[in-house]
């Protein structure tokens, strides 16, 4: 009997050891035994200029189909929010353009070329400017990690994107637009953007809990999904995101600085 248990232990140790050994090896030497993540390399073959062209192209499409808010008061007050975040974002202000679009959807999207589109529905929905900052920080996370190009490369394919850049057919362009506007990032990308947003909020002296608050009010709006469906969804479920935001550890000397952006007045102007 002892020998049977000994044999079993040997088997478990050998195969457990293979898994653990591999994971440890990769942690020590991240480049060792790499099996080439082709997907990651794929999007990088688009140069920055090409990405910018693609971004301009989609912005033109967006402007054709929607009303862009251009009001000096809105722009200048929103700029306070953008500046606060961008100062600590490790992103260049010149690389990012913000656009406010008249649309009732509670949403914000990221387009190629560092274009972040905020829907007026989102501004109306937010109780305080800090919550809006939380959502914008999340979108900045997508920009920082280049999720848009990763997503496009995965869903549409780089060759098709290149074809579209050099004057492609309208069906292709429609497919690209649909892919971008669907706003579906993979679950890992959403979590990555959340983590980035929480860090950025902390560095910008905005309480990271605002992100959780935002998701809580989304829940109250009954906009979230049934929890049992969560494993199917790509968005980390709101409950988990709320928990992540609440558990976020802050340094002891953290002091939140109020963000002076009058959302009500902005909404009146719109």
């Amino acid at each position, binding site marked *: 009997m002892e020998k049977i248990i000994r044999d*079993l232990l040997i088997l478990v140790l050998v*195969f457990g050891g293979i*898994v653990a050994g*591999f994971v440890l090896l*990769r*942690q020590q030497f991240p480049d060792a035994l790499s*099996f080439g993540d082709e997907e990651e390399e794929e999007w990088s073959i688009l140069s920055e200029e090409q990405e910018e062209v693609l971004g301009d192209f989609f912005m033109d499409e967006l402007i054709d189909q929607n009303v862009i808010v251009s009001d000096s008061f809105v722009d200048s007050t929103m700029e306070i929010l953008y500046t606060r975040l961008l100062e600590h974002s490790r992103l260049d202000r010149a690389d990012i353009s913000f656009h406010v679009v008249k649309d009732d959807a509670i949403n914000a999207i990221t387009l190629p070329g560092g274009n972040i589109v905020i829907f007026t529905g989102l501004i109306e929905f937010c109780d305080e400017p800090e919550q809006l900052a939380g959502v914008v920080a999340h979108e900045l996370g997508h920009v920082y990690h280049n999720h848009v190009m990763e997503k496009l490369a995965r869903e549409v394919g780089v060759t098709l994107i290149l074809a579209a850049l050099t004057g492609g057919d309208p069906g292709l362009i429609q497919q690209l637009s649909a892919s971008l506007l669907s706003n579906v990032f993979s*679950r890992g990308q959403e979590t990555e953007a959340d983590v980035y947003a929480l860090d950025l909020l902390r560095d910008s002296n905005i309480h990271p809990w605002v992100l959780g608050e935002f998701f809580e009010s989304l829940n109250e709006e009954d906009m979230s999904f049934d929890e049992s469906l969560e494993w199917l969804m790509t968005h980390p479920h709101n409950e988990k995101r709320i928990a992540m935001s609440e558990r976020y550890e802050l340094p002891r000397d953290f002091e939140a600085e109020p963000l002076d952006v009058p959302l009500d007045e902005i909404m009146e102007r719109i």
Partner: protein
Amino acid sequence: MMEEPLINDETLKYHPLPQPDEISDREKEDAMGAYLMMFAAVAVALPLPVINLLAAIIYYFVNRRKSRFIHFHSLQSLLSQLPTTFMSWGLLIWFVRIWILDLNEHNDYFTGYLIATVAANIIYFTFSIVAAVKARKGRMYYLIFFGRVSYEIVFAKKRGFTYQNEPVEQMENKPPR
């Protein structure tokens, strides 16, 4: 020089092992079949590691009463493919989660598990072939762990199996209960 006692612990607890010249060719072939059976089954359902398990279970229950030697080998074949089958199932589920449900679980643990599963399958196949060859020659062959468990189940005297090739002991007088 000490004589080996005629009756030791081993002979009390376990049935004697059949020697190659006591085993018929038919038995040897059936024992070998237990291992080879699963190769055919795997080929039929390569991406779905379930047919081989079903085949092994059916083979086991059809053949186990034929003789102690066949019982041992078919049980060892069945037991030894349980872990690899379950590992392959785990891999399949993980694959589905990553590539169909698009969950971001393609991490080092997955790659490590993939390597371990492939290794387990290769080791299992290799030793199954060795075991099949040995069985054909009428030899016992013990795979690590599974060999001991199968021996324990098949040859321990407390198990009340009867085999077609062994005469049923006529016990009219029985010890007091």
